[in-house]
Structures are given as structure tokens and as C-alpha cells.
């Protein structure tokens, strides 16, 4: 029971169905998953296996059709849209395959954004954002806009943005898919380093065996179910 309480993520019997016209397309067909604090975990599987859907449920940006998702002990089923937004702002950091930086803001402002949502004072916001951008090796690019940065640099900004509010977990959906091999490896190393230094839980999806190799634990997903029943 003690181990259960330590779980930062608990997914129990989660299913997710989408409707394409009148056709029901099952994306997840009963997934159980527990993730402990500080884990560096990969959800692996081919395209269409339900990786992104599972990350969406854990990230509270979609609700399961059935089953339960708890984040840091909070059952997300009955939370309102605003409560879910608060939960995302305080507990979850996101890294996207396409980086998803706000193009009109500089690297520094992009990293400050999650702190703005939490109404952190300007000076503190700036200090933390600078610190994070320095930690990801972008101290020379603070005032560059995303379009002035390379793909790897953009993903570093995204990592800094995901980390800046000290979330309990970071969810990364195929974070290296749009990067060349070397840059992808650097990004994974950076994530691993952040995980080791800050004890932040990392959960990322991938279909690349080389990326899986770096994970502490791999949860294989196939056709919307966890392939390894022990997970």
C-alpha cells in the first residue's frame, strides 16, 4: 500500500474511444500503469499503438472513456476544466514532438510563460527562466525567437519550459522524432540529466529502439494495450 501511495501516476483500466463518423475507433483498450516518483520511463510502440493517447490521458488534456487516471493521488475524473488546467500548470510539464513554442515570444519569454500562468512575480520568473535556459545550454540565445533557433535548440527551450515550474512529472511525446540522431541523443541525455539532478519524473513515448535503450523502464504498447502484462 505504501508503494501505491508513492505512485505519481496511476492509470487503471483506462480505455479511450474516438468516433470517426459512426465508426468507433478504440485507441486504448484497458491500460493499467503505475509510475513512481523520479522514474525515467519510455512508452514504446509503433505508430497508432496509443502512445500519444495514453500521454494525453496522463497529461489531463483528454479524459478516458472508461477507467481512472490519478495524478499525484488526485483522481482526475471529476475535475472541472479549470481544475485540470491548474493541475497541468502545477504538476505537469510538456515536451512536444513539434516543440510547440510560441513563435512571437523569445526563448526567455517562452520559458517564463508557465510561471506567468501561476502569477509568479516578474523578477523571480526571469531568474528561474534564465537559470533553466543556462542549464539546457542556451544562455547565449535568451532573446532569440523560436524561428531563429535550430530544431535541437528549440527542443532545449521546450525542456526548459517544461521544467521551469518544478512540475512533478514531464511528459514528452516523441521528443526526438523531429531531430537528427545526434541532436536527438543530446536531448535525451539532457532529459536524463534533468531526471538525475532534479528527480523529476520523465515519461516519454517513442518508437525508436535506440531511444528506448536509454530509459530506466520501457512500457511496450500495442494496439491500445500494454503488451507486457506485468506493467
Amino acid at each position, binding site marked *: 500500500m505504501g508503494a501505491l501511495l508513492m505512485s505519481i501516476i496511476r492509470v487503471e483500466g483506462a480505455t479511450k474511444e474516438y468516433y470517426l463518423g459512426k465508426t468507433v475507433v478504440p485507441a486504448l483498450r484497458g491500460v493499467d500503469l503505475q509510475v513512481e516518483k523520479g522514474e525515467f520511463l519510455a512508452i514504446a510502440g509503433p505508430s497508432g499503438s496509443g502512445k500519444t493517447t495514453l500521454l494525453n490521458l496522463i497529461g489531463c488534456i483528454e479524459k478516458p472513456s472508461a477507467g481512472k487516471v490519478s495524478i499525484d493521488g488526485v483522481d482526475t475524473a471529476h475535475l472541472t476544466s479549470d481544475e485540470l488546467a491548474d493541475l*497541468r500548470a502545477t504538476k505537469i510539464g510538456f515536451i512536444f514532438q513539434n516543440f510547440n513554442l*510560441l513563435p512571437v515570444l523569445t526563448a526567455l519569454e517562452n520559458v517564463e510563460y508557465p510561471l506567468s*500562468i501561476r502569477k509568479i512575480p516578474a523578477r523571480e520568473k526571469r531568474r528561474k527562466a534564465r537559470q533553466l535556459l543556462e542549464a539546457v545550454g542556451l544562455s547565449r540565445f535568451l532573446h532569440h525567437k523560436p524561428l531563429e533557433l535550430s530544431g535541437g535548440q528549440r527542443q532545449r527551450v521546450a525542456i526548459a519550459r517544461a521544467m521551469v515550474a518544478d512540475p512533478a512529472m514531464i511528459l514528452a511525446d516523441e521528443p526526438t522524432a523531429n531531430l537528427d540522431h545526434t541532436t536527438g541523443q543530446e536531448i535525451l541525455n539532457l532529459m536524463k540529466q534533468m531526471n538525475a539532478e532534479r528527480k523529476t519524473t520523465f515519461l516519454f513515448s517513442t518508437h525508436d529502439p535506440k531511444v528506448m535503450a536509454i530509459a530506466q523502464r520501457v512500457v511496450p504498447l500495442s494496439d491500445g494495450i500494454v503488451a507486457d502484462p506485468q506493467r
Partner: protein
Amino acid sequence: MTFTLALRNVFRHKTRSIITLSTVAFGCVALIFVGGFFEDTFYKMREGYIRSYAGHLQVFKQGFLEKGAAKPFDYLIDNPGEIITLIQGIEAVQYVTRRIEFAGLISTGENSTSCIGQGIEPKNERSVRQSDVEKQFQSRGDLSLLVGNVIETGDPLKEDEGFAVLLGRGLASSLGAQVGDGLILVSHTIGGSINAVDVSLKGTFYTSTKDFDDHFLRLPLAGAQKLLHTDSVQSLVILLKKTEDTARVKAELRHLFQEKGLALELRDWEEINDFYTKTRALFGRFFLILKLVVAIIAILGIFNTMNMAVLERTAEIGTLMALGTKQKGVAALFLMEGGILGALGGGIGIIAGIGITRLIASIGIPMPPPPGATMRWVSEPMIVPWTILFAFALSMAASLLSSFYPAYKASRLEIAQALRYAG
């Protein structure tokens, strides 16, 4: 941060934003200019009417307004001097003048025509020469020069010329009379008998009203009183220093007359001239239509921009919400962007509107005589503060209104779907 984001988003697509801002700004310019043009037209029409004929207030004997048309000489004011002193005691009054009107016949000996005679006090009735009007058109000096009675040919009347007359130019033309001609003026006296006097044609005049110029002749009050066999007058015409004081002075006078037990009644220039009131109401409708057109153009322009923005930035909205921005935060962002477009467009519109209106006013727009009038004039569109405020308020309201639906739509996006939109 939301404001910074909104401001930068507005200028993300410069061409599109410039077009949207131009649409809003152009609408404001149109409102400010047309509002100023109408106001100048109203002002000149009003002042022209007041200063050429009606005055701000007219005083009659009690009952004249109701029954005076049938029996004008039953309602004469017998002791005008005392009343004039009373009226002149009011600070806002510029002058008071006496008048008497009568229906008559004017004849050259060969041609005769009916007319309305007006006995006036020349020193108090404004008149200017045609040459001054021409100068005024060239130099565009003092407006008031344009709005008095214009002596087209001959000379203005003088106090001591009892039997000299000025004919309205339409009347002179129909009679075929020339300056210097001897004419015969015939009318009923107040006792009901017929009287005729020889008069000399001193000149012709025109006012801002064609109908007036076609029927009226003017002669010194003393001459008219001799013709009509009376020492009384029919009305006292009051000119104020400022038209805005009309209602206040009217109330004050009414109170004074009551206090002194004087059986007198008052009419203000608006009551005398409902043509002005009706014209103003008509133009008001035109202006309302213009306001609606401007509002619709601004709403459609901003709506298009905001709707496109929501469509193009779907993935970005998904990102904002994934990062923890609430629905109302997203809605606020888009409303703010709309508000910025409205404020900037309105601001630019006001500056451009004032500039363009001032420029055009400094050049002047030569205008033909209005319907029923004879006098051409120069329009100098005014800067009207309430029109400026209205234009700005309209652009803000239009921008917020047109952003409301896109903002709502953005805030209701499904985050996962929105994120997928990036492809």
C-alpha cells in the same frame, strides 16, 4: 505576459493587421469627417437663419401665436421701450430690435405684386454688401459675414429714410424694379382703411432663404408705422451673444414677464424654424446609417482577422491550454487582440480623422445653396469632440463584439485535437 502575447500576435501578420487597422481607421475618419461636415452645415444653417431673420427669440403679445395670423394688428405691443429695457438687462443679450409686419401690394406703376412688408430698425438688423460676400469667399474670413442679409445691389437702409425700401431679390425681379425707381406701397392700416405711400427702391437683398427673398420687402420702422397708422410694434426680436444660451434666456424672460405681469409670449428660433429641426433629424438618420455601415465594416474586418487567427493558431491554443492556461485565459487573449486592433485602429482613425478634417476645413468645400435657399457657402467641417469619442467607442465596441465569437471558439477547443492540428 498576456498583453505582450496579444500585442505581438496582432503584428504577426503585418499586412493583414495593417488592412484591418486601416478598415477601422478609415471608418473613424469617415465618422469624424462626416460628423464634422454635418455639424458645420447645421451650424451655418442655424446661424444663417438666426442672424438673417429670426433672431434667437421673438417676443409677441399674448395670443399672437395662436390667433395673430388672422388678425395681426389685434396683437400689437404698445409699450416696447419698457420691455426692451427689461430684456437688455440680461447679460447674454446682444441686442433687441423692433419689427412690424404687414401684407401689402408693391407697384412700379406698370407691374404690381403682393408682398410682405417688414418695418425694421436698420441699425439693429445686420446687413452686408455683396462685395463683402465675394471677399469672404476668397479669404474665408469671419463666418458671420456670410449669414447676414446681403445687399446685392444698392445700399443698406438708414434710420431716417422713412420711405426707402429694400426688396428681396426675387420680389425685385418679379416686379422688374431697378435701384432708384419710385414705387407705390399699399396696405391696410390697423384701422382697416387702405393707405398708400410713395417709396424709393434703395436696393435689393438676399438672405439664406429663397422663399423670404421672393416675398419680403423691408423699410425703416418709422415708415412702416406711418403707413399702418400706428406707433406700436408687432414683435421684438432678440439676438443673443451665444446661441447656446437660448433656452436659459427664454426661461429667464418668461419668468421676468410673469413677475412684471406682462402679457407677452416667446418663441425661440427652433420653434420658428422647424425646417432646421427637420433637416437636422433627417441628417441625423443619414449619419446613423453611416455609423451602422462603419460598424458593420469594422465588425466584419476584425471578425475575419480574428477568425483566421484562431484557425491558424489552433495548435498554439492547444499548447497554451496544455501548459495550464484556462479557457477564460485563452478567451481573454483573443479579446485583448481584438481590443488592441480596435484601440489602435480607433487611435489612428482619430489622428487621421482630425488631420484630414482640419486640412479639408482649411481648404473649404464650396457648396451650392441648400434646398429653398439662395446663398452658396463654404463648408468647413468641424472637429466635434463627441463624434471623436463616439468613433473611438464604436471601434472598441465593434472590435470586442467581433472578437467575442472567435475568442469563445478558441477557448472551447479540445486540447488534444488542437495539438494534433499542428500535424
